[in-house]
């Protein structure tokens, strides 16, 4: 992959004080930084402050960055540390389950969509089957707005995982590194987030189709 080579170039440009290179980097990562910061701090404003502080720390640490991890992973490590410090200072404790979702079960689909698990003939089968979605409605601008709303409504950790994986297109390994998540927890969080967005889409498209 050309990623390592382009990262070398980017680093050289940043160290040389190239403003365009910095602008590009900020545009690429700032939205994700703010979303990840929201896992730890309670308000959007605090998350933006954490992100701004992160950029300063990145600039100040640039000469010491040795490239043992990717630049991206390094930036998100810095963010996470700053966000945690900020959360402690604000007296906010992270709920125990936020990064360890296994403790609290959550159904991907409302249980009343299925027949009883003790049903004599069709245990756990669909009571109300999902119907195919109309292709044209899927592509409508309003559908995209509904998706954005559904993402906003997610718990912060789920929102961060689905944003990085599915909107920004990161690999699961990159997300695990940036958020310091186990493989299983990353998948559970992604599953819950995707399931909820699907359910929101289904609600909307059923409503629109009737």
């Amino acid at each position, binding site marked *: 992959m050309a990623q390592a080579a382009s990262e070398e170039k980017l680093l050289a440009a940043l160290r040389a004080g190239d403003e365009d290179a910095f602008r590009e980097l900020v545009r690429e990562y700032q939205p994700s930084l703010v979303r990840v910061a929201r896992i730890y701090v309670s308000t959007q404003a605090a998350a933006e402050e954490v992100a701004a502080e992160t950029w300063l720390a990145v600039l100040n640490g640039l000469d010491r960055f040795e490239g043992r991890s990717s630049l991206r992973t390094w930036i998100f490590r810095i963010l996470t540390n700053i966000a945690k410090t900020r959360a402690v200072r604000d007296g906010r404790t992270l709920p125990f389950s936020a990064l360890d979702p296994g403790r609290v079960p959550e159904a991907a689909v409302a249980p009343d969509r299925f027949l009883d698990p003790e049903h004599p003939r069709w245990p756990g089968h*669909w009571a109300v089957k999902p119907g195919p979605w109309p292709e044209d409605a899927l592509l409508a601008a309003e559908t995209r707005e509904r998706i954005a709303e559904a993402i906003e409504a997610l718990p912060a950790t789920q929102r961060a995982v689905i944003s990085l994986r599915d909107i920004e297109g990161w690999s699961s390994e990159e997300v695990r590194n940036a958020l310091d998540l186990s493989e299983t927890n990353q998948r559970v969080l992604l599953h819950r987030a995707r399931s909820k967005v699907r359910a929101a*889409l289904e609600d909307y498209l059923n409503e629109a189709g009737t």
Partner: protein
Amino acid sequence: MNEHVEQLSCQELVELVTNYLEGALSEEERLRFEDHIGRCQGCKVYLEQMRQTVSLLGHLPEAALSPNAEAELLEAFRGWRSA
């Protein structure tokens, strides 16, 4: 041998969709999953909807940075550069 394998219910299957799409199921689990999908229209549609959801997410516009925030960060960059 297949006949002895316990079948997945639809309610169980929907919890495995992400593991399936991530390639995280064991060979046996994957076969059970695909066997169920092959015989169940509801779950087939469900899997397709999850794929469509992921695909739509990939085409959302990324959140943009406010011009103000960008200007402030660039200001900080200039300060760092001249320090």
